[in-house]
Every structure is written in C-alpha cells, then in structure tokens.
C-alpha cells in the first residue's frame, strides 16, 4: 500500500471504513515519520505516543463493533502547546512552567478526542504565543519545511510545520493577532481563525483574552471545515463563548454547517455575483512585488468567475498595529501575573521573602519578548498613561470595528495578502521588535474586530533560491464563517492547480 502520509481526512476515512488500514497503523506511520524527520524541523516539544495509541485502539474497536467512530476518527492531530492535554506537559514554550503537567483537558482537546482524533503530540510555539516567527522560545526554533533556513511563522509554528510536513493531517493553533494565519501562509497550508467566541478558550493559556481564538490548520479547506465543525460550540467553562448563534433557528440562525454543501462540481458557482473587496491599504510598496502579483492573479480568477471585485479602503485599518500592541500587551500583563512561582511552574531558589520570590521567578522564567510585552502592557495601564494609551487604543478599536461593519454592508468578503513577505530567514528580524511586529499588519485587524479570517495558499514564489508558498487572506463579518469557507473552497477549485507539498512532505509520500 502507498504511504499514509499526506492524506486528506476523506482519504484516511475511506481507507479505515474499507478496512484497508487500521487507526493503529495510521498512528504508527505518522509517529515514525515524526521520529525520522522532526529532528531537523522541531515541530514537536513532546510526543503523546501512548495517548495516540490508546485513541487508535478505541477507534479500531468501535469500527470492529460497527459503531460510528466520530467525525475525526483515526485522523492524526498536532496540538499547540498552550492548549492543555490532561496528564501531559504543558510548556507554553516557556521555562517558567518548569515541569508542569496539565491536570485537565482543554474543551477543544476533549472535543477532538471524542470525535476520534489521534493526538500525536504537543507542538511548538512562540513563548506564550507572543511572536510572529516562532523564534521566541526557550526550546529549539522550528524550521520551515519548504526551506529549513527559514522561519515557519508564529506563533503557532509547530502545528503549521506538522501539517506542512505531513506529521499530522490537521493541527490546532491559537490566533491572537495572526498566529494561525501567518504560519499557514509561510508553510503553504490552510489556517483559520473563527469568529471570536465560536470556539471555547477553556484550557488555552490566556495571552490576550479579548483577542485569543482557537482554530484549525489543514491541507485543504474541506479538512479545515471538518475540523472547525468539531471544535465549535458553546461552553459553560468559557464565559465568552457564544451561546446565541447556537440557540437561534430558521433564518435568524447563522450558517454554522461548514461541511455540507462543499461540492467540488458546483463550487465555482458560489463566486458568481460574490462581492469581493480587495483591501487597498495593504497593497502598498511595503508588500513584496511577487505577493502583489499573486493577489492580482487571484483578483483576475475571481473576476473571470463572475465575482464583483473592487478595491476598498477600510478606515483606520493601519492603526490596528499600535492598537493591537497596546490592547494585547495590556491584557497579557494582567494574564501573565499568575505566573509567579507560587502555585505551579519554576520557582527561584531560596528567596528571602515573597516579593523576591515573584521577581526572581519571573525574571528567570520569562524570555525576552514576553518581558518586553509585559513591560509595554504594564506601562500602558499604569497611572498617568492609562488614558493616553489603553483608553485611546480601545476607542480606536471601536472605530476599526465600525469601519469593518460599514465595509461588510458592501462586500461579502475582503481579500488581502497575509503578510508583507514570504517566510524570512531565521535570525533576520530578531533584533528589531518593531519590524517583527509589522509582519502582523494585515492579520491583526480581524482579532480586534472579532471577525473570522482564513488563509489559503494561492501560489508559489520563486523570488528566493528555494520555492516558497504565498498565502492569501480572506475576511468576513462576524459569524459569516461559512461564507469564508465556501469562498475559500471555491477559490481552491478555480485557482491554477498546485499541490503545495513541502520537500519534507514530498519525501515521505
């Protein structure tokens, strides 16, 4: 039989149902691939082999009894290591958590496991999900499987590298300012940040609570849609998880059936009459010419299929960058106050008093970027500066949200580049935090407005020595996640065919 690596969810399910392969064999094939190759890519911080084997056995037993094994039965998954999996280490990419073992499952982990997914391991990240390149970590920096001298993007670098390398069919990340979409773009895969509140954050280590959202990585839009369908839902353990959309019925209810209706034959019809706004603010000279060329290609394809494509400016969208870095760091400074060496994690040796214990545990445990953001957030919240920074940022945040609301009266979806460049070299931007922050300029407006965003590979750049994928970003209004998925699915069918197989994946197929 051919390799089990690189298969889509549908293909693996068919193989399982036709008894051509067992879930145990799927787990072992992927674990072998990781063990043979991840020493060069560093996608995983810890493997959860025993859990994967136990889960595979359960799926095989259900299949043998003729029971429904679940929507993700036998599908290998990599979970970002700021999401709790019970009885396994949770590092958040930080030294401060020491040898912490998660006492319970995150709600999304529980949902994935109930659906039959096979958890292969905890995937690497920027420390506490703060970063755009995944270089902010006290563990090995993960490598882009297209070119191992380049970054995979952050902060969810690990799950993106895992999916792009074929270590797992799907990945789970978190996105606070682009942390799913940026690595998806750099690694040539699909990544989606759903509408804020659609997926429970219980068990996700909080970075910026009003911006954090969990979402899927996959190698096709359909696989991302299947995964998101498993993740979503109201959760009594997360006060900000949405209840209303799941209670409404009939025409009032938002379309949350992401998988039904994704039919390849009639997919292009969806584009006919679709109103697409190309965000003009992100077509400046700061964007690499080749990315602009790819966006132009997509515009033309959309137009050829009957979409109404227009350029649009979204007022204040460029100020999203300062607004984000004030709001996010302010929330982070409060959220990360809990890491003080008292109840869990690493504690400084023999401190004389409690304040010294806090100060030294935090100084030794946090990395450079985390400290920088805590400092920035504490400053923005401090007496005398609160109005000038935090309050001002929250006011402009509302202007940005309202600006999006007005724009979505005229357009069904918005289109933009994901980032000004393709994956850059490791070390290239580490010394200049502000330049690094600019990577997120196109992704973070969606988090401020709470709207869904999806990244889809749209071409291969040949500007550098090795080919690198280019991702486009689609945005839609709150709870219009289905519009985003249907648009992306249609685009996937009509864009020039391309397999988007990284060298690490290709070698294993």
């Amino acid at each position: 039989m051919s390799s089990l690596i690189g298969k889509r969810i549908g293909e693996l399910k068919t193989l399982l149902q036709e008894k051509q392969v067992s879930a145990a064999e799927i787990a072992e094939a992927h674990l072998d691939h990781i063990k043979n190759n991840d020493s060069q890519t560093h996608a995983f911080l810890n493997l959860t082999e025993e859990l994967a084997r136990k889960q595979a056995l359960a799926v095989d037993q259900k299949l043998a009894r003729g029971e429904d094994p679940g929507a993700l039965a036998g599908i290998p998954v990599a979970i970002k290591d700021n999401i709790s999996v019970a009885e396994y280490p949770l590092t958040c990419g930080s030294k401060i958590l020491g040898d912490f073992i998660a006492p319970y499952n995150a709600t999304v982990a529980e949902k994935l496991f109930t659906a039959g997914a096979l958890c292969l391991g905890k995937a690497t990240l920027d420390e506490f999900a703060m970063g755009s390149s995944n270089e902010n970590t006290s563990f090995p920096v993960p490598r882009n499987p297209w070119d191992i001298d380049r970054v995979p993007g952050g902060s969810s670098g690990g799950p993106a590298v895992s999916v792009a390398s074929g270590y797992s069919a799907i990945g789970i990340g978190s996105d606070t300012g682009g942390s799913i979409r940026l690595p998806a773009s750099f690694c040539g895969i699909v990544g989606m940040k759903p509408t804020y509140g659609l997926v429970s954050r219980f068990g996700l280590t909080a970075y910026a609570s009003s911006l954090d959202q969990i979402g899927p990585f996959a190698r096709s839009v359909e696989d991302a849609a299947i995964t998101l369908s498993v993740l979503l839902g109201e959760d009594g353990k997360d006060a900000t998880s949405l209840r209303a959309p799941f209670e409404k019925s009939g025409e009032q209810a938002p379309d949350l059936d992401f998988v039904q209706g994704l039919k390849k034959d009639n997919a292009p019809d969806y584009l006919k009459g679709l109103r697409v706004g190309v965000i003009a603010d992100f077509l400046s000279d700061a964007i690499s010419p080749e990315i602009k060329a790819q966006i132009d290609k997509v515009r033309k394809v959309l137009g050829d299929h009957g979409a109404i494509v227009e350029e649009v400016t979204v007022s204040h969208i460029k100020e999203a960058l300062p607004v984000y870095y004030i709001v996010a760091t302010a929330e982070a400074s409060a959220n990360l106050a809990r890491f003080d060496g008292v109840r869990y994690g690493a504690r400084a040796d023999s401190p004389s008093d409690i304040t010294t214990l806090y100060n030294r545990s935090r100084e030794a445990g946090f990395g450079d970027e985390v400290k920088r953001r805590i400092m920035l957030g504490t400053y923005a919240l401090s007496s005398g500066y609160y109005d000038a920074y935090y309050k001002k940022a929250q006011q402009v945040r509302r202007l940005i949200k309202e600006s999006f609301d007005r724009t979505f009266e005229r357009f069904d979806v918005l289109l933009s580049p994901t980032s000004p460049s393709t994956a850059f070299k490791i070390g290239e931007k580490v010394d200049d935090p502000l330049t690094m922050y600019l990577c997120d300029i196109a992704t973070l407006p969606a988090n401020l407005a709470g709207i869904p965003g999806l990244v889809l590979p749209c071409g291969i750049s040949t500007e550098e020595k090795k080919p690198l994928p280019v991702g486009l970003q689609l945005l839609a209004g709150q709870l219009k996640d289905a519009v985003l998925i249907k648009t992306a699915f249609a685009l996937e069918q009509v864009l020039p065919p391309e397999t988007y197989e990284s060298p690490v994946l290709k070698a294993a197929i």
Partner: protein
Amino acid sequence: MITAKDVEHVARLARLSLTEEEKSLYTDQLSRILDYFSALDQIDTTGVEPMSHPVSATNVLRSDTVVNPPGHEKMLKTAPDKEDAFFRVPKISD
C-alpha cells in the same frame, strides 16, 4: 519618550527584577515602540466609547448543577512547594 527611571518603575509594578543590560535595552526599544504608537494621537476619538470586547456579550449564569472539579489534591500536585493542603511560600510579613 521613556526613561531608564520609567523602566525601573514599570519593572517594579510588573514584578520583574531586570538586569542592568535589560533595563538599557528595554528603555531604547520601548521608546521606539511607543514613538510609533503616537500615530494614534492623530485620530479624533472624542465621544467614542472604549471597546473592551469584540462581541456584545451579556452576563449569563450556568445552571446550578453539581460538577466534579479536579480537586485540591490534583491541583497541588503541580506546586513547587506545599505542605498538607496548602501552597508553601517564604514569610509574607513579620
């Protein structure tokens, strides 16, 4: 503009005992970042209600049913230092 003294003050608030090297690095970097943020000053926000959350959520209460939380023994397992049912820390006051 942020001074070395500001950085020391903020580090104290944030419970971080920064090294001298970090203090000078952060003074420089935070100054440049805050300088960039001053772009916000140009925007007229008179009368704009600050937005703290992306969705207009109302408070909801969970139904009053008995659940089984992990329990203090399980949560204490991850403590760096403990005694009986408590987290142990150095002396807090004289």
